[in-house]
């Protein structure tokens, strides 16, 4: 009995552990090794601890990397600004219909990610349903465009990752004791002051968690940039894809991937450190 009890925890982690080992750790190790190889597709690659791959990657694609982080940051802010009011409304005003509205919030995401992004392309085309009428009425210059711009990429990212921001914020708001904003009002705070001094600080952990959940995958995303952006809007995910599949430059692609990973890791750790881990990762920390 005692023996079984002692080993039970390990047995419970075993399936997940094996899964991680097979599909995460092993490929990661292979990729790490690949990133230090040299050679080409025809002659084959050899392990040479060629750190130059990293230097080259950053040298050539440093700008793309910076742009990726910039777009992801802008889209994260946009996500927070757009989803906070919605989450607030659902948490405090939706009454008995909360689950219904939460469902409505996520229902578009049942459609495939790529399909959704292509649908946006239809909407944003130069003479599409959005810009066409505005141009016809002379409200916009005829050469005005949204598609193939950085704005379109940021908008697409924002849209595609919105629920990952909205849901943590909703959960955080839901957890705030209803009497706290009331206590603030009772103590002479107007609506705005009660929000700024009580509700907002108490719901910030949700915003912080949402920021991590959206920023990290957005920085590595390439679909939005490829579908909605122009040639000058490439993101690092797109470059990795192109180097890997189009150019067969496996070491460069791997090195770039690891660079991105390192940058994101440092960014998130710095962020967590600045805010306190508990705020970012919730009560689990």
């Amino acid at each position, binding site marked *: 009995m005692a023996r079984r009890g002692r080993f039970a925890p390990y047995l419970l982690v075993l399936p997940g552990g094996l899964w991680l080992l097979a599909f995460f750790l092993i490929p990661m190790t292979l990729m790490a090794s690949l990133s230090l190889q040299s050679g080409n597709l025809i002659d084959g690659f050899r392990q040479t601890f060629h750190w130059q791959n990293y230097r080259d990657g950053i040298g050539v694609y440093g700008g793309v990397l910076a742009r990726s982080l910039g777009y992801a940051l802008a889209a994260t802010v946009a996500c927070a600004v757009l989803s906070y009011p919605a989450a607030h409304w659902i948490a405090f005003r939706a009454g008995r219909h909360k689950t219904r509205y939460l469902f409505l919030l996520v229902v578009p995401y049942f459609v495939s990610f790529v399909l959704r992004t292509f649908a946006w392309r239809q909407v944003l085309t130069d003479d599409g349903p959005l810009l066409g009428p505005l141009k016809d009425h002379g409200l916009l210059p005829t050469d005005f465009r949204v598609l193939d711009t950085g704005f379109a990429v940021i908008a697409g990212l924002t849209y595609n990752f919105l629920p990952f921001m909205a849901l943590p914020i909703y959960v955080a708001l839901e957890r705030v004791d209803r009497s706290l904003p009331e*206590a603030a*009002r009772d*103590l*002479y705070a*107007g609506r705005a002051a009660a929000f700024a001094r009580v509700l907002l600080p108490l719901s910030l952990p949700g915003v912080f968690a949402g920021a991590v959940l959206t920023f990290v995958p957005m920085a590595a995303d390439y679909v939005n940039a490829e579908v909605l952006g122009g040639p000058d809007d490439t993101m690092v995910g797109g470059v990795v894809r192109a180097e890997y599949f189009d150019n067969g430059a496996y070491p460069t692609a791997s090195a770039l991937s690891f660079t991105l990973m390192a940058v994101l890791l440092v960014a998130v750790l710095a962020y967590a450190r600045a805010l306190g881990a508990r705020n970012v990762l919730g009560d689990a920390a």
Partner: protein
Amino acid sequence: MQNGVPAIGLRDVAKAFPGRGGTVPALRGVDLAVAAGEFFSVLGPSGCGKTTLLRVVAGFETPDRGEVRLDGASVDGVPPERRDVNTVFQSYALFPHMNVFDNVAFGLRRRGVGRAEVRERVGRMLEVVELTGREKARPDALSGGQRQRVALARALVNRPRAVLLDEPLAALDLRLRQAMQGELKRVQREVGVTFVLVTHDQGEALAMSDRVAVMNDGRIEQVGTPREVYERPRTRFVAGFVGTSNLIAGRVTEWRPEGAVLAFGADGRVVVPDASARSGEPLEIAVRPEKIGIGRDRPDDARCALRGTVADVGYLGASTTYSVATAAGDVVVYAQNDDATRTPAARGDRVWVSWHQRHSYALDAASHDDTNPDADRRPPTRSGGGPDGAVRSDAEADGSARSGAARRGGVA
């Protein structure tokens, strides 16, 4: 105390909440006048509308009808932040992201009080509630009693016209609750602010208040000093909810100068002074168990008396509880054990229970409880008695009234 403009005045205030299948009334027309400087309690079972009453005064709920006045001025449409009352919430509602000092200073800062004055007033108030030295502590590092005192200080520091306290002691354990009762009373006397305290604990209401309003099902049944409410409850609900009462129902058999007389069999006779009921009319009277004497000898004719058999004896140390089955049903008697050598009665004994007629009082015939359409769900009582009379002892009215209220609450 009663003259001048009331600090808080309510006139015919009603409030219903939307619920399944219509609305759930929480307040059904409440009139109230709380004098300045008074310690006023609202006592009632869970779900009777106490919190709603406070929320209407604080400005968190808009009444469907009626009017709330603070210091004589109507506060119709005035938001909570512009009402000069502060609330101590049922859950304290301390801001978890602020320390004790910032919690207490919150109201003063919102009103633009200067830094030096904030520091001075908060410091002084923390002294009053004996929390000096804990300024930097977060609420989650405080004990229940300390949190309660922070919540109190946070309200009092603003020197409002009135402090509204929603069951401030309910979350504390018994000993702390008793200590805090004294504390609250002391602070109120020291600061001289009007207190409106909501509670479902009758002991708390009686011990602390200048006046008590007893509330049931969205209505105020009676307002009076603790003594008035206890000694002269006007409705069956008040008689059962505040302390324990023996309820005796019967028909008036005779009208005498000293009052209405109800006869129970050959030996039973109960007189109620000043009852307006006529001969033949049904009448319900109440007697407190501690006012009743128990003995083997026939009491003198002037006393109200019933003859019966001791059904149950409960020895409680300081007192003994008897339950006596009489022609009018079970009568509960509390007897002080002031003579250790004497046991007046044992189970199965034939005894007399008797009391001075000034201790019997008639209950309002049409108490709200009776006009209630679901009157058949009124607190179940141990009842007995023949066709012409029944005695109820509402020893458990507190609990059963609460379950009745909970049922109503369940509709919401």
